[in-house]
């Protein structure tokens, strides 16, 4: 099977999975009580039958259920994610407006946690049993075991309120109208807290995984052989152990990279980060079906995409791997 065939196969499978997800999402979401017309009317503190009827017609909810499903799927086939009557915008616009913020946040958190996590994990494994190992393992466990939103709120109080080092919420300084480099720095300044908070959990995860993986590889025959041949210790660790131990970590990271997009709901909520995680949650509690379905679809598509990329990287890096699994 050559690369093109492999890629085509994966793409077809990915599209099928996405199609199934689109249908499932629709059924799931429509099973929830409440509808967007009622929510809108309810929030306004006044409603009558005529208003509800008008709104339902707007939202397309007066159509038979299967017709609604058909319209939705037909739209998706032509990359039309629908229209949010609540927000008076095409869903794709709403998502695209929010996606960069999420990608920035999760991307930063992902990179930091991957780099720091593997480095710490490697260090801990190298020093297994020593005090530095204990510290790293304990810290990793501690971050893993603390509720994320609690860390997020505490970090706001400590670093934003008490120490005044960073802003507590938001994406940029509103009203400052920075441009160019100043704006980039401003956004980076706002990014620090949320990215670190979100990254901590994953740092802990990668550190633990890397450590375990290193220790496993360290006991493997080819490492023993290398040692027996008289290769120096640091070289063994670097060239033989670390290189092989990182593979499972990368696999995990590939899986998680996609999940991060939808998994930042809490961080985005606490830090008022205008990303799609928050968009999804708001859409859910407003039953803004088209937006909710759109976000689900886009984040699922990203998971599929990342999985294909991970497999591809694997295949290129290591031709022995049979990419059928």
């Amino acid at each position: 099977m050559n690369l093109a065939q492999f890629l085509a196969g994966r793409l077809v499978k990915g599209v099928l999975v996405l199609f199934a997800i689109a249908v499932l999402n629709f059924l799931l979401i429509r099973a929830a009580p409440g509808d967007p017309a009622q929510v809108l009317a309810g929030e306004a503190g006044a409603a009558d039958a005529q208003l509800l009827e008008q709104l339902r017609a707007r939202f397309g909810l007066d159509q038979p259920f299967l017709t609604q499903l058909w319209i939705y799927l037909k739209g998706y086939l032509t990359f039309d994610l629908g229209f949010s009557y609540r927000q008076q915008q095409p869903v794709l616009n709403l998502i695209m407006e929010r996606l960069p913020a999420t990608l920035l946040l999760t991307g930063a958190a992902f990179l930091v946690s991957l780099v720091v996590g593997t480095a710490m994990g490697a260090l801990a494994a190298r020093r297994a049993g020593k005090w530095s190992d204990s510290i790293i393992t304990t810290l990793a466990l501690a971050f893993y075991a603390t509720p994320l939103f609690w860390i997020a709120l505490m970090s706001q109080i400590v670093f934003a309120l008490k120490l005044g080092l960073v802003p507590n919420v938001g994406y940029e300084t509103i009203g400052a109208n920075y441009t160019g480099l100043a704006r980039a720095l401003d956004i980076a300044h706002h990014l620090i807290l949320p990215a670190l908070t979100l990254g901590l959990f994953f740092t802990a995860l990668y550190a633990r995984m890397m450590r375990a993986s290193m220790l496993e590889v360290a006991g493997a025959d080819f490492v023993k052989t290398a040692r027996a041949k008289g290769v120096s210790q640091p070289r063994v660790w670097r060239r033989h152990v670390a290189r092989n131990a990182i593979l499972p970590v990368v696999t995990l990271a590939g899986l998680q990279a996609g999940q991060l997009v939808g998994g930042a709901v809490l961080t985005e909520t606490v830090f008022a980060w205008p990303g799609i995680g928050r968009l999804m949650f708001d859409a859910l509690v407003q039953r803004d079906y088209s937006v909710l379905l759109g976000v689900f679809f886009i984040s699922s598509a990203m998971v599929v995409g990342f999985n294909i990329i991970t497999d591809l990287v694997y295949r290129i890096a290591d031709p022995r791997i049979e990419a059928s699994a």
Partner: protein
Amino acid sequence: MNFLKRFARNRGAVIGILILLTVIAFAILAPTLYPQSPWRPVARPFLAPFVNERFPLGTDTLGRNLAAGLVHGARVSLMIGIVSTLVALVIGVPLGAVAGYAGGFVDDALMRFTEFFQTIPSFALAIVLVAILQPQLGSIVLAIGVVSWPPVARLVRGEVLSLKTREYVQAAVTIGQSTPRIIFSQVLPNTIAPIIVMGSLMIGSAILLESSLSFLGLGDPNLMSWGYMVGAGRTRLLDAWWISFFPGFAIFLTVLALNLAGEGLNDALNPRLARGRE
């Protein structure tokens, strides 16, 4: 016993087990220690901890006894953790076992199905499930279970794949044992060790997940879980830190203990990977 010795040599694991036993003891003794409902306001709100010995951990926004909440919360949180993990195992184990044992088309189909659940962002899926089924104990447990089973299925499948080529399984096939019988009597018992390890870690994640749901307002209002307590006290971090600190710390300790114990188990079961020895 070799296993116990190996486990006992791992200090972290022993500590983990001790913490867990303490938490379980509190959970069991909760009605004896604090027979009154933890929801009942019993004193002035915002009583600081370590001041009044009747309320060693202080009181919350409504004047409810935090210590009572904490021990009653231990019951709820542990139960949510354990039951939702069981739900995940009930879905994941048979699915993984069948996929691994049958192979071929069945394996392919089941793994696609698993992949499907791994593709939808899991936290988002949990939120939607709880919103659909309305926030109550059953739906929360179910939602956590539904989003946590895929790794179990993958693990079991992997184990089964390697086990089914072993001689004793082949022997069972040769003497004509039925497939379900082989799976249940020959294959699955040998996958129990890794499942237990994974399960112990999952209980911890389930407790964390429940607390996140609670934070978003998707908790069961009739059950005082630790997650509920952290969420309810979060706006008072600045002037009444204890309201959310103690339950948060309880979550932290329990998840930590579960992980330490889980890793200890893992090391004891797989001496090859034992930590701290080269």
